């Protein structure tokens, strides 16, 4: 195995393109090093992207933010502006692993590891985030919802990597929230995750909502029916029940060591509802 730590995106892309299927991107390394050790992957080259400035920077952009793919969870949590605008995305990032993991695990890594249970992905989908991808053929944008295609599978072509993720401008009376369920209070992989991003009007009526779920299908899902269930409502009991039902109905989970189909399906509804209530409170506070 070879280790390279290029200073520029171009150099990183060049190394990855040259390596073909035998190259891996090293951002935080919290998944990659585990896979290396278990010998589930044996790449010829590992490209450490943490010395590339663009990938390590959070910058305001068009009222929103551009987050470098190698920015860590801890750094997101320490960014006051981001935290204020997108508390759901930040809380999702901060839920990944321990304090130690937080110091390393990156937003881009969480996305590209393509685990169906990744915490930030439902939050990013709910936020309608867009990934900026760079590769041998230049840059392209792709909605985060379309980056992951299945467990461990992404829509990235050979030699491509995610450079940054753009969060849009958050409109007034809008807020997001993310909740996940794990058996312990920390250190587990999500059994279910639910991200909600919603907008209220002056009367507290929901005018737009995006609900996304994690760990209930082969990849994180946007559940339009769950969002539709609360649009036009004040998130009254009936609307919330409908949201929960729609969330549960969208689940197509598996039984595995972390949860059962029945359990995940049920709890997805519970969490989606609870996350919606948190987002509602936050949005209300911004009014």
């Amino acid at each position, binding site marked *: *195995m*070879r*280790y390279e*730590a290029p200073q520029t995106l171009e150099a990183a892309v060049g190394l990855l393109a040259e390596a073909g299927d035998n190259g891996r991107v*090293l951002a*935080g*390394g*919290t998944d990659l*090093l*585990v896979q*290396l*050790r278990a010998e589930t992957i044996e790449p010829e080259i*590992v490209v*450490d992207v*943490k010395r590339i400035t663009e990938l390590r920077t959070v910058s305001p952009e068009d009222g929103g933010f551009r987050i470098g793919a190698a920015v*860590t969870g*801890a750094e997101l949590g320490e960014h006051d502006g981001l935290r204020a605008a997108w508390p759901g995305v930040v809380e999702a990032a901060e839920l990944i*692993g*321990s*304090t*130690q*993991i937080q*110091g*390393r695990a990156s937003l881009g890594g969480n996305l590209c590891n393509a685990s169906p249970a990744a915490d930030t992905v439902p939050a990013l989908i709910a936020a309608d985030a867009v990934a900026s991808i760079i590769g041998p053929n230049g840059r392209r944008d792709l909605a985060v919802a379309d980056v992951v295609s299945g467990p461990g599978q992404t829509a990235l072509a050979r030699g491509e990597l995610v450079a940054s993720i753009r969060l849009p401008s958050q409109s007034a009376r809008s807020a997001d929230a993310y909740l996940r369920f794990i058996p312990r*209070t*920390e*250190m587990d992989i999500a059994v279910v995750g639910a991200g909600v991003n919603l907008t209220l009007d002056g009367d507290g009526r929901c005018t737009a909502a995006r609900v996304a779920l994690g760990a209930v299908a082969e990849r994180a899902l946007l559940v339009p029916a769950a969002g539709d269930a609360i649009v036009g409502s004040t998130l009254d009991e009936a609307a919330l029940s409908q949201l929960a039902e729609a969330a549960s109905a969208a689940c197509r989970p598996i039984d595995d060591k972390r949860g059962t189909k029945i359990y995940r399906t049920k709890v997805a509804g519970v969490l989606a509802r609870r996350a919606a209530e948190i987002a509602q409170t936050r949005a209300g506070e911004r009014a």
Partner: protein
Amino acid sequence: MSKCHVTATINGDEVEYLCEPEETLLDVLRDQLFLTGSKEGCGSGDCGACSVMLDGRLVCACLVLGAEAQGRKVETIEGMAHGETLHPLQEKFLEHAALQCGVCTPGVLVAAKALLDRNPDPTETEVRYWLAGNLCRCTGYDKIIRAVMDTAAEMRGN
């Protein structure tokens, strides 16, 4: 494949080493530099026994490649005491009997110091969540949490 040549600052001293590209920082610390205070409990970032500071960030040394430390600052448990003087956390851990077997202790201390350096007045809940990545099987955490809280109080001058 050739080894990586790395220069890093470890506990304040400049250190040079050669490592295999797949070797972790923990392997380098333990096997090459004989800094065996950092322990390997899992090798997957789930136990925190190898906690070290990397450029001021708390990390698991088992999830960092040795090569990544090029030009960076690493602080380990071996650098926590100064000369003959223990860090207040080390003193309090002894006073509170906050260790039994002691194998998780170096990692817990490094992590606890990272917390108090950022937050001199943490709540019990904050201490518990901050240390959630440091498994201890002996103590049930009670005396560890008390020792950290007591150190914080003492360092604040209470």
